[in-house]
């Protein structure tokens, strides 16, 4: 998961005022470099707003990886059979590794891993909303591994073409691993969907539960604002939320139907004239409620993470003993 940077609704209507105190000449050079497709590196000049938005985005992505390990992680101990248990362990391990890579990328912009994790456990920074929903059954874990990772890949492949060098390089590596997750998830869902009646029922029910969060995954339609525009111009945001959602539907709805599964949205269909998918508008009030802490698992996820941080504090303290200066990673 899942570099979906949710733009704070309060920031959407900000104008170019964020650039008011930037040196126009440096700003023009910076924008020209991005225009030419060059990567921005940690020591390069960048507008304060660019730095701020990137930190927020990469950090959210890192948090999503580490929080995402929780709903799937609870199924490692219950995975049915050696093959699944080993594969799920490796997958969730990858996700934790992604968090590590992403935190390192964000650290190059000047925020320490510790500060980021602090903001996570105090609820100050966000993570992908989907992880505030429970994984009730084994089939839920399989649907997550297939479709949530599929969504993540769409998002991350887009972001890998962004402008910030360390983030792009982290994403290239992450995307390679995500493609294995997708394969693993798909294989699991195929097994259930072509299995016994009990297994088919399990996987259909899981899909029904996960469909609304999946539709929420890419975020609400982007408001056309100067803020969004500037993030796209700076190649911080690489595709609109709606475009990514369309891409996802186009790639995966046919695959879902092929398996004899149904999608719990009677209005879902491809409009052959426009080439676009039509669907029931997701409940964005619910989305906002969940992202602001009101989802079924927000409290639990943060409590688990906070508890892990508390219990591990003595280890981190011990590691500091004898260590002199903090070294910023070379991402």
């Amino acid at each position: 998961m899942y570099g979906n940077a949710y733009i704070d609704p309060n920031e959407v209507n900000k104008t170019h005022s964020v650039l008011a105190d930037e040196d126009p000449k440096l700003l023009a050079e910076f924008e020209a470099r991005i225009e030419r497709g060059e990567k921005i590196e940690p020591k390069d000049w960048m507008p304060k707003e660019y730095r701020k938005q990137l930190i927020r985005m990469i950090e959210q992505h890192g948090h999503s990886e580490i929080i995402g390990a929780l709903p799937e992680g609870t199924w490692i101990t219950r995975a049915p059979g050696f093959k699944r248990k080993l594969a799920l362990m490796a997958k969730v391990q990858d996700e934790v590794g992604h968090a590590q890579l992403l935190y390192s990328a964000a650290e190059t912009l000047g925020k320490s891993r510790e500060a980021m994790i602090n903001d996570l456990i105090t609820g100050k920074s966000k993570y992908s909303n989907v992880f505030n929903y429970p994984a009730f059954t084994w089939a839920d874990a399989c649907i997550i591994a297939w479709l949530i990772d599929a969504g993540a890949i769409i998002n991350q492949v887009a972001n890998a073409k962004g402008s910030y060098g360390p983030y792009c390089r982290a994403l290239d590596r992450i995307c390679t691993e995500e493609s294995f997750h997708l394969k693993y998830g798909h294989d699991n869902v195929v097994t259930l969907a072509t299995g016994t009646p009990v297994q088919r029922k399990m996987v259909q029910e899981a899909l029904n539960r996960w469909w609304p969060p999946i539709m929420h995954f890419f975020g609400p339609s982007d408001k056309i604002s100067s803020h969004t525009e500037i993030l796209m111009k700076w190649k911080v945001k690489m595709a609109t939320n709606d475009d990514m959602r369309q891409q996802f539907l186009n790639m995966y709805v046919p695959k879902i139907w092929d398996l004899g599964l149904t999608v719990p949205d009677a209005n879902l269909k491809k409009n052959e004239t426009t080439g676009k998918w039509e669907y029931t508008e997701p409940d964005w009030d619910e989305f906002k409620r969940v992202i602001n802490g009101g989802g079924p698992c927000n409290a639990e996820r943060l409590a688990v993470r906070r508890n892990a941080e508390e219990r591990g504090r003595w280890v981190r303290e011990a590691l500091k003993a004898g260590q002199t200066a903090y070294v910023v990673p070379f991402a």
Partner: protein
Amino acid sequence: MNVAAIKELLYKVADDQLVIGHRNSEWTGLGPILEEDIAFSSMAQDKLGHAQGCYQILHDLGEANPDQIAFSRKADQFHNCQFVELPNGEYDFSLMRHFLYDHADQIRFEMFANSSFEPLAKLAKKVKGEIKYHVFHGNTWINKLSTANEVSKIRMQTALNESWNYALGIFEAGNFEAELKNEGIFEGENALQNKWLEVVCPLLEKAGLTIPEKSSWEPVLGGRKGYHLAHLEALVAEMSEVFQIDPTATW
């Protein structure tokens, strides 16, 4: 070749690997630092692979297939030592258990590599290369945490005290010690324990830890005979929860 003796040996070793692997995997997402989540997950994957390898040999000797053995038995059919079934507790205990257990594991598989029982020797040659990294990881961290500061030192000493008698239980004698030795299959638990003491005691002392008084040594036995703590029952129930929805289905 004494098949009953070999089976008993393989069951206990495989069950140790399966259960410690399961415990290691419980650190996923919850470790004190991300790097340790990842390390414990790697070790868990290796252990599971080792368990699978041993169960496969058992299967070749006529037992059920690895999935059925691992995911269909009741707790009292497991032959792991009680040490590995204890809950993870805090990181100090998990780390100390990992250190003590993996040294025993390393020596055991080095012995297996010379076994007259070919399939075991073959498996052991592969496995011991992986355990080397587990031991290296354990050594590094035991050293680091036992010498870092007062808090961590006390924690590691306490973990050692709590672990010691359980660790001695790893070496509970089986029913075929003499047969295994005579046929060159395995040197036996007694020899293993002696070698283990020769290795771990100096390392612990070097890390500044005190090994419990010899008069207090009381190996926790029973695991090898199927006597377990309630923890294992819970672990086994959790592990087989999905598989048991339909043990004949493909998952």
